């Protein structure tokens, strides 16, 4: 009986493993959509082609997986409202040398270090991990499941000179 359960469990695990990339890819696309549209509510924010650096830690499988999913979603360019996101993968240690206009910080990187580097360059940081925004490392965190949630860290936004439009601020969570 145990063997039968083990086989079933193996089958479920295999199916889950096969399904995960698709799910992650779908979430990455939705997160990108929200992140890109949220950027259009910045005062004096970017329009048209916008360089997005996708920050990852090559030593963290989860970070690499999310980077791959985000880059796949961006493809040759991802339309989100009035902007078109153009992606470049950026290792966490290379943020300082990147020419990106906005960083998407994948889960698992050293948020504090990346956040500090981005603040130094006055660049907006976005993550799919709420902790990145609540900790003050990121300007914004976005989630799409089960509902769209946007968190903006006011202090971090102020530090990089980012100001969101009033109507937008009234509809999101600020910390």
């Amino acid at each position, binding site marked *: 009986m145990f063997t039968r359960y083990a086989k079933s469990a193996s089958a479920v695990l295999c199916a889950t493993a096969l399904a995960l990339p698709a799910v992650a890819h779908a979430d990455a696309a939705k997160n990108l959509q929200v992140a890109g549209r949220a950027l259009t509510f910045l005062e004096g924010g970017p329009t048209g082609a916008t360089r997005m650096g996708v920050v990852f830690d090559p030593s963290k499988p989860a970070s690499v997986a999310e980077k791959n999913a985000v880059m796949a979603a961006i493809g040759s360019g991802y339309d989100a409202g009035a902007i078109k996101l153009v992606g470049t993968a950026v290792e966490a240690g290379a943020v300082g040398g990147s020419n990106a206009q906005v960083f998407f910080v994948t889960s698992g990187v050293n948020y504090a270090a990346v956040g500090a580097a981005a603040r130094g360059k006055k660049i907006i940081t976005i993550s799919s991990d709420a902790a990145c925004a609540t900790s003050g490392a990121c300007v914004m965190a976005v989630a799409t499941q089960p509902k769209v949630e946007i968190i903006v860290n006011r202090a971090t936004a102020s530090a990089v000179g980012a100001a969101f439009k*009033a109507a937008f601020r009234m509809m999101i969570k600020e910390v």
Partner: protein
Amino acid sequence: MFKSFLFAGAAAGLALTALPASAQSIDYGSLELLFNEPVTTSATGSPQRSSQAPVDMDIISADEIRRSGATDLPTILSRVAGVDVQAWSAGHTDVGVRGYNQARSARLLVLVNGRQAYLDHYGYTAWTTLPVRLEEIRQIEVVKGPNSALFGFNAVAGVVNIITYNPKFDDESFATVRAGTGDYQELALGQTLKLGERLSARLTAGSSKEDEWDNNTGSLDRLFLDPERLTANVDAVAQLSDKVELRVEGGYASTIQTDIISTYAYAPAKYLNHSVKGTLSWDSQFGLIQASAYQNDLTVKTEIAAVPTRYENTIQVFSLQNLFKVGAQHTFRVGVEQRNNEMPTAPMPGGIISYDVMSVSGMWNWQVSDTLSLTAAARHDALDLQRQGRFPVGLPPVTNALWDRSLKETTYNLGAVWSATPSDTFRATYARGVQLPTLVDLGGLQLVAVTPTFRGAFTGNPTLDPTVVTNFGLGYSRDMPQIGGKVGIKLFAQKSEDVKGQPNGVQADSPATPISLPVYSFVNIGESEMRGFELTAEGQVADGFHWSANYVFTDIEDSADRGYNTAIRYAAFSETTPEHRANVNIGWANELWSVDTFARFEGDKSLYYNAALQPVEGHMTFAGRIARELPNGMTLAVSGQNLLDDAQRQTSGLAAERRVFMTLSKDW
């Protein structure tokens, strides 16, 4: 006065262009795409996601309007849970929320982009006089229960705020040609224009006509006119600076139709309605500051008791508000409003009834935690009533001083929204709203009737008190991924104090004297309580199928003051409100085809006709639409209303006729 407001607004706009900062109207489309749900400002004045609004609200989307197959707003609204409709003729329908619907339904405030479309002179909405075409509506926001703290008087049963596309953000143009049975003909055109980088405008116009339903009432045929409607609308937005914006809206409607008046008698009516509104918005460092001014001018040629009657009504409204956020968790709105409203007496001229209202209002929304938000809103209105002019012979010897009266009312809305889990939302609301007596009620009506069989005067009553409505509601909704939708239940209880009774020739309110006739007027006759519940569910099935269903139960208990009978005063709401109403919608669509079906059930009720309550049996109605997308943005659709019978008795008046339409439309 209004011109000076506009001039002041324009001057302010010119001055503000020199300011270094930033004003935006709400970009509903972008916010809806961002949050993946409709966005509204009709709950508190602040932009909110519909799921987080601290009021009981439904939002009808543009896609739902398009797929409704309906040619008028009341038909679309009838599919919202708890909305009651009484279709008295092909052109006149009264709409209420959770009961208390009646001829000249006064409890539902109707707005277009926040501008009142509700007709103050007699307290009702003539839906055909709204200058907007269905194609230019982004969404219809239906608030159930009082929302006077935001919108002021008459938002007691609910509010319908019609939000049109904003030409600054929405490049929507259309052409529609429709023909149908009953000699129905309609043409509508709309074009959005981008006039440089800073000026956008949308121009729309439309015309429709059809045959009136057959007269099976025994009333004179001359009372029944074939409905005709001509509308034009302009909506322009000028970006005066990066943060300052001016939006100007102007509407025109000319309508011919058959009305039913508040004492349930048919009357031919010709409406001429025009309005202009200017709104200046400044996205300042102090908050979203908005100043608006509008004027509505209305002329109605109709008759009362076979006496030709001409109503003239002018409303001027000026408002100023600031919406701002303090810290991360608190949003506030503060506002002031000044309103002037006047009408000459009718059908006998000689007097002018008017009032000025000064209002202050405020709202506080507190995001207590990630899952709990609390909202408190309050408004104080101070109304000064007055009358000028002479009185006709036959009325009691009173002077204009009787109208020198002040009314002061405070209204409020309290709401709590608790998202217990990402899928479960609880909502509690408590509100106090005020239904103001209409200008007709307060003395605009002035009729001396002397016939071989009747001698009396029908007049307004300047001492009439407002009806105060308090409402308590509880709601729970749960997202159900299993069905691709959600389910919900709501419980509500409402009390109306100082309910208004209509004049009736069998009960004089002031006896005859040697120098005056008996007077029949509007009086406060008692109170009424309502309680009920609402069940809703909606979902999507693979392959393009979607469905929704709702059921609402209400139970009303009327209580008349000593000396009054609710039935005689046309206020027997326990009789005139059906206990049960339900809707089912099933639809399917692919890239080329869409099919939608709508079934509606309304339970037994009684409605007045010929001064007595007449039973109206419960009935089921069925409507539908089949559409085929064509190349170049064109759509061909066949739709129909009241499809189950050639003519169906839905009220105590004309039987509603089956109508089938063929529509060819193009969007670009």
